[in-house]
């Protein structure tokens, strides 16, 4: 169990719902992969229509909804979207996602910081999606966000932990949880994030666009758990050369 945003959770695998082929997978992932936190973009919470049910109706009562501000161009829009999201879902967990561009979907650090300041004051549990930027993470920690969510690689690229050297200092220095968000393409990437000491990962594309999202979610859940256990036990140091004796050892020591 670990504590985050005032909740005790078993699973360190958070799942985004935006790219799923079918929302009925949400409940299956909750029961079969043990996923407890689902990120939902407010712009995708439509009304029930003749053809589709509202995404919220698919989320089990005990699961946690993390509303997402994607689509917001600045902090003002993000704050409005978060407010609307809280009203629609009754959840005060908000992922602040304000992108600077629609090509790489990199976060806009300045607007994100401004939105977080307001949302913390408004009583939200705030989870900002950010660059792996230690200074920004520290500032966010100071204003009182629940966790920081630095990207592993650009959204949707499946490239894994491309920013390892920048993520490590954040994990080392920040006391609030660090959730690696974006870019994780394979279970082994998720395991690696956990081995590095991340507190959780958030996956969307790699699960949703696989040919069997539920099985893939199960695979990720296992990898996340394995990585976490290994981190807790303590990962052995890597060596460039084997430490076995060298054929020259006798001559050198002699």
């Amino acid at each position, binding site marked *: 169990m670990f504590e985050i945003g005032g909740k005790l959770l078993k699973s360190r695998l958070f799942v985004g719902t935006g790219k799923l*082929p079918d929302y009925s997978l949400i409940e299956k992932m909750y029961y079969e992969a043990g996923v407890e936190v689902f990120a939902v973009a407010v712009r995708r919470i*439509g*009304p029930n229509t003749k053809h589709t049910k509202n995404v919220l109706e698919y989320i089990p009562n005990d699961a946690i909804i993390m509303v997402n501000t994607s689509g917001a*161009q600045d902090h003002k829009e993000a704050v*409005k979207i978060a407010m609307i999201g809280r009203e629609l879902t009754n959840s005060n967990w908000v992922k602040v996602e304000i992108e600077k561009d629609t*090509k790489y979907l990199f976060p806009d650090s300045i607007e994100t910081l401004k939105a977080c300041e307001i949302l913390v004051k408004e009583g939200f549990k705030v989870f900002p999606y950010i660059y792996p930027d230690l200074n920004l993470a520290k500032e966010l920690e100071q204003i009182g966000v629940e966790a920081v969510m630095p990207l592993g690689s650009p959204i949707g690229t499946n490239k894994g932990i491309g920013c390892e050297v920048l993520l490590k200092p954040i994990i080392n220095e920040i006391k609030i949880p660090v959730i690696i968000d974006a870019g994780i393409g394979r279970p082994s990437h998720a395991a690696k994030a956990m081995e590095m000491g991340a507190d959780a990962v958030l996956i*969307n594309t790699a699960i949703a*666009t696989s040919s069997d999202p539920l099985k893939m979610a199960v695979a990720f859940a296992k990898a996340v758990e394995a990585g976490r256990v290994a981190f807790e036990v303590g990962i052995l140091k890597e060596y460039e050369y084997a430490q076995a004796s060298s054929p020259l050892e006798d001559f050198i020591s002699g």
Partner: protein
Amino acid sequence: MASFLEEAEELFKEYKEYIPTHKEVCDILDKEFLSKEDLIKLLNVSNKEDILLMVKKAQKLTRENFGKVILLYAPLYIANYCQNGCVYCGFSCKKEYRREKLSFERIENELRKMKEEGIDSVIILTGEDRINSSVEYIEKACEIAVNIMSEVSIEVYPLYEEEYRRLSNVGVIGITLYQETYQKEDYEKLHPFGPKKDFEFRLNAPERALKSGFHEACIGPLLGLSHPKKDVLCAILHAEYLLEKFPKTEISISFPRFRSAGTDFMPLYTVSDKEFIKFLIIARLYLPRIGIVLSTRENSSLRDALIDVCVTKISAGSKTTVGGYAEEKDEDSEAQFEVEDRRSVSEIVDVIIKKGLRPEFTNWVKGVKNI
């Protein structure tokens, strides 16, 4: 002339005869981002095997960037008064035609009827007539739409920046505006009189809208009016230009093919299915995050195949007559163009689900702009 049009002209001239080899196509497809030279080279490909390879990569890029989701929308024609003389158009002012403009009450009825069908994203359309379809009229219509639908866009005549700002302030988030053709000489011949004659004012309109607070712009040529490959190249570079200038906005592209519209106009060029598909997948390969929109002009089997590959947004249950949703209308004689895919919203939703995709009815948060 806009710099991207000059660039397109140069590329087109330089690579006019250039057909890339199979190896070259493979090398281009291996790249993460294509250069402008790669773009024109791919547009020159006609070998079936190479096109199929391009389809494969386009499909992968679409799923990575957009997930297993297809957005649905529907157009609402609120008026067909027009002062333009577009030689190819069913709404052209030279045509003897029953002109109509919906009252606000009828607009609301239409929207409610669309909403009942499940539509939550609407594009409001008018002809170009600043008196009969004034900005005030459009603004009021949009206000009504914003109260009913989650996502409201416009496809009306080009406006001035302050006029776009008015619409943005009532909650309109998107603009669709087709340049018809990017070839200025042909454009002027096709639009012999009326306000639409001004090529630049139309070309720069999406930019004015995005500057005024719009979040989305959909652009493109009407294929067949001029050289199709050239128009596609210009449209893709136009989209790239907008993306670079307004990096936070969402840009979409659409390549409607000319369809008969009750005039005797015969287009100089026809675009085969093969060429049409190639154009769409190249737009995806060059701009992986661009929205690709497909209207009901195309037939159902082609639409169904394309949503698997590169298309992100399609219209459904469209009526192209003024007042066609709530009232019985003759879609054959009063429409702006012929609708090929006449399936209902339910039928299209079924097809999307059967393909393992998720139909999505909105991409915007109702009420963010106007509170």
